């Protein structure tokens, strides 16, 4: 068991994965368990960052940095903005007032994880071809986006526009 762990960690990629996933899980757990909203957001920002790191080790450099840019840069700040503009008094209230509800949820989540874990462990996924070369996949992503996936891409841009206009309309004051 220990030998396997040492063997696992002696590889650079595994070590990086181990550290990043540890940070990601810690961040997620802190997000759930901390009491102040800003701390929660910061914990989650940590998760986002380490996930970005994992993407980069997976050869998805572009997606990794986009993850950092969008999640850590934009979404986290947007969340902090949301927090600053709303009042968060008495965070202690978020302590479970309905313990059986939360307990049930916890059990449910753990059961779900058990099922997923079981399935993952039993699944045999073998690559049918060699992994793609991570070198310069930004270029390839760009080419794919504008050839094969051009329609989803355009729809996505429309969605984004609509979403942001919608956000402005919703957040706008009613009186004007």
């Amino acid at each position, binding site marked *: 068991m220990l030998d396997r762990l040492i063997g696992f960690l002696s590889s650079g990629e595994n070590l990086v994965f181990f550290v990043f996933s540890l940070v990601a899980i810690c961040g997620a757990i802190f997000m759930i368990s901390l009491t102040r909203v800003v701390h929660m957001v910061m914990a989650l920002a940590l998760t986002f960052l380490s996930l970005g790191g994992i993407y980069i080790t997976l050869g998805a450099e572009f997606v990794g940095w986009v993850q950092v840019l969008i999640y850590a840069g934009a979404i986290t700040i947007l969340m902090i903005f949301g927090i600053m503009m*709303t009042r*968060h*008094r008495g965070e202690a209230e978020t302590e479970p007032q309905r313990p059986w509800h939360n307990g049930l949820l916890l059990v449910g989540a753990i059961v779900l994880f058990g099922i997923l874990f079981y399935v993952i462990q039993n699944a045999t996924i073998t690559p049918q071809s060699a992994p793609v070369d991570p070198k310069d996949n930004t270029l390839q992503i760009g080419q794919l986006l504008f050839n094969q996936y051009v329609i989803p891409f355009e729809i996505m841009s429309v969605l984004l526009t609509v979403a942001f206009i919608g956000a402005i309309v919703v957040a706008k004051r009613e009186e004007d």
Partner: protein
Amino acid sequence: MAQLERIEPIREQAEAEPAAGSGQQTFADGDISAAYEATAGGLLRAGPPESGDGLRTEELLLNVGPQHPSTHGVFRVIVKLDGEVIREAIPVMGYLHRGTEKLAENLNYTQIIPYTDRMDYVSAMTNNYVLVNAVEKMLQLEIPERAQFLRLIVMELQRIASHMVWWGTYLLDIGAMSPFLFAFRDREIIINLFNELCGARLTYNYMRVGGVKWDAPPGWIDKVREFIPYMRKKLDEYNNLVSGNEIFLARIQGIGKYDAQTAISYGLSGANLRCTGVSWDLRKDQPYCIYDRFEFDVPVGKNGDCYDRYLLRLEEMRQSLRILEQAVAQFPDGGDIMGKAPRVIRPPEGEAYAAIESPRGEIGCYIISRGKQEPFRLKFRRPSFVNLQILPKLLVGETMTNLITILGGIDIVVGEVDA
């Protein structure tokens, strides 16, 4: 007067709660209401005018001042912010109150003069003049020609110096740093002239009942004469430096606008009144000293915004230079500088009001005498104080940024506001 009634409880609150003035409240909890109750005693609780239907918004109560770089001294404005928009503003003054008027009741008239220096310390000469003028009115004194000219020259130089301070600090408030130093470089010349004349750079204590204390030293008038064309050139430079700047115009055009009616009903005077188009300048309309002998124009604005006030003050400097030019040319060669003032000034029983045009507006001095060496009651109409009263009205609906623009545009000197 509603204003006063509202301020009093705030002041009590502020004393009870020393932290209130620190611009810092228990905000970490996002709990604005507690901070808000603590500071303004819930006086601002009425809520934004437009949300009568019970809509709740997140508002921020901010204490601008007493220690704040843009309040020009210890002056405080409590603003209720919605985002960056001011929903309500209450100026709180009195941090620099020294009881000048009360102190004056125990001092004889000569002793009061140094106190007037310290009221509007940016424009001490005009303050000196308004007091001695009121006393002279009571005594019906004849002032010698030379003294009259000296008074006029120093008052006009003072107006230029005062406007220069305003110009520099206003632009500093708006964010430009260099104009401040440009203005102070040139103000230094005036200050040095005053220093040569009366031995002080800020609090001159120059005028006396019946005349002035010092005669012009040899060559002093020539220095003033040289200063006039120099300053004209510098005013053009000031204009080139700032007045056309697009960003600056965007910051001040159309900001802090009011009309003539409002200005008059708030009792505004000086550039704050003239920017609305009302041509009212005591130098022209109720001439004092020897202003009626000189030709000059009273510039007026038409939009009543900060930009008009800005241009007006620049133009006033030019007009002052015009007056100076004439005064220096007509300056008498000799003569007394002190009139026949009695050794102990003891005005007859009665009262007198003298009002003059200070750089900030109409400064008035009202004296009730009971025939003693000391005034029975002395009251200054202080233009900074009066002009400030329009602030709460102007600020509603403006941004935090414009608060500074508007407050600076009014041109207050806190020493004068609080006296």
